[in-house]
């Protein structure tokens, strides 16, 4: 035995409900090999006692897949937005500071409401419309190399990290952020989706759309899936430049 048991200290920004002020609470937990932020939060939930030894309410957070594909457990860990399931305690500086992504409305503790991202996906028509009153048959083929390229864009899990990192997504602006913009590029790359490409381009040329990007490029640096978000934005910039002239002068190549 000899040496003192190793512990991990967490400092968590908590909020009891949407209308309450936030406060920090510290927790000290026994260290376990290979623990991550979620397993630590589970430990706090099992035994919600803070560093002063007082019993407190268990910390609330969102999680689902536990393997960085669902995007639900995003939070700010030591200042940077990322997923808590892949945040290994061994790689973090202590005390580990957990905060909710306050770009979004905070529901409770570390739980945020990412609805605005899903609303943005609706706004930019991030889907391929295939429904008709009769069978429309197969769509045009997609070249395999293009499919592989588009697959990278499809990895987006709407986790909200790119919005949290973006200096232009805040309560003074209605910028939709990088994630839904990149989805426009994905849907426009699809051979069937491309049949409505002008509708999506016009949608992102609206308020809070593409033009609100200030090219700080934090999104591409922060994206946990390594999606080339800034390349998507620049590519859409080129397409909307053309679309702008098509809208103004009219064109035989509307689609």
């Amino acid at each position, binding site marked *: 035995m000899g040496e003192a048991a190793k512990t991990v200290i967490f400092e968590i920004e908590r909020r009891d409900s949407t209308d309450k002020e936030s406060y920090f609470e510290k927790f000290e937990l026994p260290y376990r090999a290979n623990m991550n932020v979620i397993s630590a939060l589970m430990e706090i939930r099992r035994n919600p006692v803070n560093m002063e030894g007082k019993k407190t309410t268990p910390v609330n957070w969102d999680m689902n897949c536990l393997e960085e594909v669902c995007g639900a457990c995003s939070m700010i860990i030591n*200042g*940077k937005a990322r997923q808590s399931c892949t945040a290994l305690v061994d790689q973090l500086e202590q005390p580990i500071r957990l905060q909710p992504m306050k770009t979004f409305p905070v529901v409770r503790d570390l739980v945020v409401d990412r609805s605005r991202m899903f609303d943005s996906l609706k706004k930019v028509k991030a889907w391929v419309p295939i429904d008709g009153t009769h069978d429309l048959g197969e769509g045009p083929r997609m070249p395999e190399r293009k499919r592989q390229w588009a697959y990278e864009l499809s990895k987006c899990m709407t986790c909200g990290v790119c919005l949290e*990192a973006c*200096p*232009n997504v*805040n309560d*003074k*602006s209605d910028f939709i952020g990088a994630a839904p913009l990149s989805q426009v590029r994905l849907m426009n790359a699809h051979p069937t989706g491309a049949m409505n490409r002008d509708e999506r381009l*016009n949608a992102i*040329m*609206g*308020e*809070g*759309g*593409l*033009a*609100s990007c*200030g*090219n*700080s*490029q*934090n999104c591409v*640096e*922060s994206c946990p899936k390594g999606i*080339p978000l*800034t*390349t998507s*934005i*620049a*590519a*859409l*910039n*080129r*397409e*909307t*430049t053309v679309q*702008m002239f098509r809208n103004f002068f009219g064109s035989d190549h509307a689609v």
Partner: protein
Amino acid sequence: MDNREFLLRRLHSLLGIIPLGIFLTQHLIVNHFATQGVEAFNNASHFLANLPFVIFLEIFVIYLPIMYHAFYGVYIAFTSKHNPGHYSYLRNILFTAQRYTGVFLVVFIAWHVFETRFQVAIGNAAEADFNMMANILDNPWMFAFYVAGVLTATFHLANGLWSFLVTWGITQSEKAQRYTTYFTLVVFIVLSVIGIRALLAFV
């Protein structure tokens, strides 16, 4: 029209390079005549001040574009939340610097125009000549203010050129954007050297 913001932002980006970027480059190059002596500078300055239709050139090529770029730019600067502390990536630092230099330049250019062109307009000075600038730059604080003004202006132009190329979709790939970063760094250095050499010639 619901794409008003899109058009306003594109106009802001365009005006920053054409005509303002071209004007700044021209202005710094003409200033450089000061290194060839009093007469060379005065001749160049006299030539520009007496161009035909000079007042229309000034209004449409300088005053209106710069006022739009300045006022809309200040609005843009104050609608972002800067976070280079936690996200200290090069592009984010430059993003923040672009906004700080922009706000500083509004103050600097307003003062610079007041001290030079405006004094000529209200008849306090016959012409914006070498002596006028030499008198202004005689004060070491003013000299420092002008050095800061030149450096922020050349930075703002060089970095603005980079984002202009992205905003209009000319540079898309990560590699294209990286190489443009190197290119705009060269633009910044060259314009800064020209600008600072001219300032030094007045003292």
